[in-house]
């Protein structure tokens, strides 16, 4: 009790509170801009803490990192472009709600669950303080493997109306997760000698390509975010969202638990937690529409889990100096700066500092949610802005954010490639959620399997926690498989047969090539890639065969089932898809060219001003003003706030300047 009072008194110092508020402000901005996330924010702030006392330093840092997953919801819901990798699952139902004119409701629900989830995380962290060391020591390597298997079993919930495609999408995600130098044997897997691929496919670019580009293309096709859906955003709608969240308080608490526990396990990143929570919620539809079609539970679950994880990932960080997440790696640097050694001292000598971290997380979550709620109404108005105006500007932010990742043209090619994949998946009923789950869990699955196997042999199956979780995963999958089998002959909407077949055939070729090459890797580097490529190839052969058979039937005169709505997260753009996607890819290619030729400022300006004028989306003067605004913002974030090593514009280099 004394410690709690002491911690509150220390944190109550006006300067430290100011640092907390500053951190929250920075965190909200970092969360909103796609392409940058918590790591960027912390790297920005850690050098500022050299001259701060420990309370002020952690108020600033944790204040920032606690609210990133609150504001990253804004672009996810409005545009379908996740603000950080922790908001990808929110896109599925949140953006679907925005399209129906319910953006304000989605925000109300999201912020309320973010806040409560964050508070649950802080509370659990507080409760864990006395027992966190034994707790972390109790879980062994096999348990971590079993947790990732269990996480992967959520694919069963995300597989959609054509479950074979869902399973194949998850395998494809797994397979792509294995690109890069493997952590065990140091073998190059599909890096093609390019140093950019050594560290694997960058997760930020993969998610922006998979969700961001296809959603922007469908925005072009619809004309504006909510299309023809009526209703201006109102406080009443927002309150309705908040009430939705409060009604689902049990879901929030469960996902808060889940987020905290998974956050405490090193290797389970926020992106994985997000999808596992989403899969958990998807087991029960509640009173809303189907999952993927704007069910508010699909917003509440990931939003509460991703804010709760901050408290959880502090547990191993404080107790053992083992970072519970990627951002915590940087937070550890701040411990050094403050002369603190994670370990028993943090729970003894420095206990009041540890407790002040709990309060920081709690305050930051309340404050962050409050600010966002306040901003909801003006932001939700964006839903009515014409796509012709919105898309060029958002695309610029997104691509500059991508370029910032490694400052190389390679980023653009990768974004375009994954964007194409995402567009095809969106139109042809391949659940991108299942792909995402495979992609984020792949590395952990492989790493923990080999660790467990090297240490315990097959004896790890005798660990009760591990065995229990693996059995649970098998039961979840088994039950879903039974229901798939029973409903296999139901009439359902299906994508056009020819493109469906062609895409499956294209992926089959890819999977077979991957399988052949994976078999040449040494055993420990090749096992997981070969198994996932093999399963993927097998699934694809069936899917392609089904597509081909359907195409032949339709050519012979059979009619596709009429009057059946697409199910789940499958929301094809329809006949407008092809021109809209082509237009967006062309825009992206043009912007990439301008960014490389003229640099990130002049290139962005030229693109926005030129595109808006050429397409008559805005009169010349306004186009210049919009372009100027975009450029100023990019300059503020990427030049003033942090010195990014932007390469010299190609034109200048060609001119020899």
């Amino acid at each position: 009790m004394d410690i709690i009072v002491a911690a509150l008194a220390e944190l109550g110092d006006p300067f430290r509170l100011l640092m907390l508020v500053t951190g929250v402000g920075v965190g909200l901005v970092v969360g909103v801009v796609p392409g940058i996330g918590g790591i960027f924010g912390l790297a920005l702030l850690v050098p500022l803490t050299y001259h701060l006392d420990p309370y002020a330093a952690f108020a600033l840092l944790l204040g920032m990192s606690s609210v990133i997953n609150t504001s990253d919801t804004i672009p996810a819901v409005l545009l379908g472009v996740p603000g950080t990798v922790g908001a990808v699952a929110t896109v599925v139902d949140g953006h679907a709600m925005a399209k129906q004119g319910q953006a304000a409701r989605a925000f109300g629900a999201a912020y309320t669950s973010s806040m409560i989830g964050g508070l649950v995380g802080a509370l659990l962290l507080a409760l864990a303080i006395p027992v966190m060391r034994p707790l972390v020591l109790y879980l062994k390597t096999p348990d971590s493997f079993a947790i990732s298997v269990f996480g992967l079993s959520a694919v069963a919930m995300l597989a959609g109306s054509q479950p074979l495609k869902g399973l194949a999408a998850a395998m494809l995600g797994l397979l792509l997760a294995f690109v890069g130098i493997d952590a065990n044997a140091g073998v190059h897997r599909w890096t093609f000698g390019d140093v950019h691929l050594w560290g694997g496919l960058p997760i930020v670019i993969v998610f922006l390509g998979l969700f961001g580009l296809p959603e922007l293309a469908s925005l072009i096709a619809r004309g504006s975010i909510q299309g023809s859906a009526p209703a201006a955003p109102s406080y009443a709608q927002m309150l309705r969202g908040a009430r939705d969240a409060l009604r689902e308080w049990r879901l929030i608490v469960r996902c808060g638990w889940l987020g905290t526990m998974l956050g405490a396990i090193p290797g389970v990143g926020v992106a994985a937690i997000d999808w596992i929570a989403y899969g958990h919620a998807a087991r029960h539809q509640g009173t809303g529409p189907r999952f993927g079609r704007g069910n508010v539970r699909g917003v509440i679950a990931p939003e509460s889990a991703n804010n709760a994880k901050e408290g959880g990932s502090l547990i191993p960080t404080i107790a053992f100096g083992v970072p519970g997440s990627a951002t915590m790696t940087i937070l550890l640097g701040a411990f050094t700066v403050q002369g603190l050694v994670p370990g028993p001292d943090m729970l003894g000598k420095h206990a009041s500092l540890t407790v002040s971290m709990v309060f920081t997380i709690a305050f930051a979550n309340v404050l962050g949610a409050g600010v966002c709620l306040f901003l909801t109404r003006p932001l939700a108005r964006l839903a009515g802005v014409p796509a012709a105006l919105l898309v060029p500007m958002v695309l610029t932010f997104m691509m500059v954010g991508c370029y910032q990742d490694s400052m190389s043209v390679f980023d653009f090619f990768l974004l375009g490639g994954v964007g194409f994949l995402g567009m095809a998946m969106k139109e042809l009923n391949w659940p991108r959620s299942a792909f995402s789950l495979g992609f984020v869990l792949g590395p952990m699955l492989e790493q923990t399997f080999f660790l467990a196997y090297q240490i315990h042999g097959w004896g790890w199956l005798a660990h009760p926690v591990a065995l229990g979780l693996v059995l649970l995963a098998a039961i979840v999958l088994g039950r879903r498989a039974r229901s798939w089998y029973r409903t296999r002959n139901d009439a359902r909407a299906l994508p056009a047969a020819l493109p469906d077949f062609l895409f499956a055939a294209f992926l089959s070729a890819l999977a077979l090539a991957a399988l052949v090459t994976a078999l040449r890797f040494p055993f420990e580097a090749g096992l997981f890639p070969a198994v996932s490529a093999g399963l993927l190839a097998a699934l694809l052969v069936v899917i392609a065969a089904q597509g081909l058979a359907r195409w032949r039937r339709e050519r012979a005169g059979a009619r596709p089932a009429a009057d059946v709505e697409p199910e789940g997260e499958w929301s094809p753009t329809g006949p407008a898809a092809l021109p809209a996607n082509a237009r967006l890819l062309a825009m992206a290619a043009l912007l990439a060219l301008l960014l490389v030729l003229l640099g990130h400022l002049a290139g962005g300006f030229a693109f926005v001003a030129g595109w808006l004028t050429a397409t008559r989306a805005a009169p010349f003067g306004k186009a210049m003003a919009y372009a100027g605004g975009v450029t100023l913002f990019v300059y503020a974030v990427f030049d003033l706030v942090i010195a990014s090593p932007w390469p010299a514009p190609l034109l200048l280099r060609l001119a020899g300047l």
Partner: protein
Amino acid sequence: MRGILFLLAGILCAMGGPASAFDARTVAIKVGYGAGGSYDGAARLVSRHIGRFLPGNPEIIVQNIPGGGSMKLMQLLLGAEPTDGSVIGAVGASIAYVPTLDPATASFDPLELGWIGSLGQGENMCVVNRAANLGTAAAFTGEDFLIGASGKSSLTYVLAALARNALGAKFRIVTGFDGVADIDLAMQRGEIAGHCVASSGDLRTTDLGERVDVLLRFGSATIAGYEDVPRLRDLIGDAALRNAAGVVEASAEYDFPYVLPAGTPEETVEVFRRAFDAMVASPEFIADAARISDIVLRPTSGDELEAIIEKNTGMDAGVLETARTLVR
């Protein structure tokens, strides 16, 4: 008119006059690792001081170019970065030895770079849980137990493999841990017995020292407080084997090195070497290092680094081949 002439003359001088060895207004320290790690922290420490010791007191900025354990930055330093001193690189400790010990990964001549100096010295020792009862040399080489490591190209693996192969020990190396903290956690869980990258700092400042027996140390330098721990090279009888082991140990002899891009003029390298030497000797730098980083300062000058690398990578082919087999 006269003013214009002066102006023109000035411009001509600026363009055609002999360039001084160093006149950049801004120097970027490019770090081959992501923000927040120990290399990044060290670079930010250096960025706070080195400017004072360079001509013209340039502004110093830190930029991260992570990828391939600083190999991506290395590729840039070998051909794509300016050679006027406006860019220096903070690369991995053992990167100079990659072409020698792991030729499949990269081939370049490390001596093409301008070695400015390094901040730390490698202090690496094998430690095992006291509870495992492996505290004798006989148990260490004769028993079957587990040593933890990250990937096979990391120092955690290279040193453990070196000890095992050079001494004919029976322990097995578990690969795939995320880093030393992760390995240490598995030790505390009792899943593995130890690792081979403990420094005297770790042993003193954390509870590690109370939990483990220190069995073996690498390198030639003495480690204060651990003089009695047997040195690997003293345990190897065969001279050729000892030489080969020495090459591997040398790759961990210094840490946090700073380099100038390939092709940087000799005079510019010299300017940076002198600035670096003056910086590491200045009391402000030493005090700041103690305050904001956990690096044990044991600087090596650029000339020495170059000599060490030259000697070890220039050994005869047979020794280098043996060295390669020792780290497998």
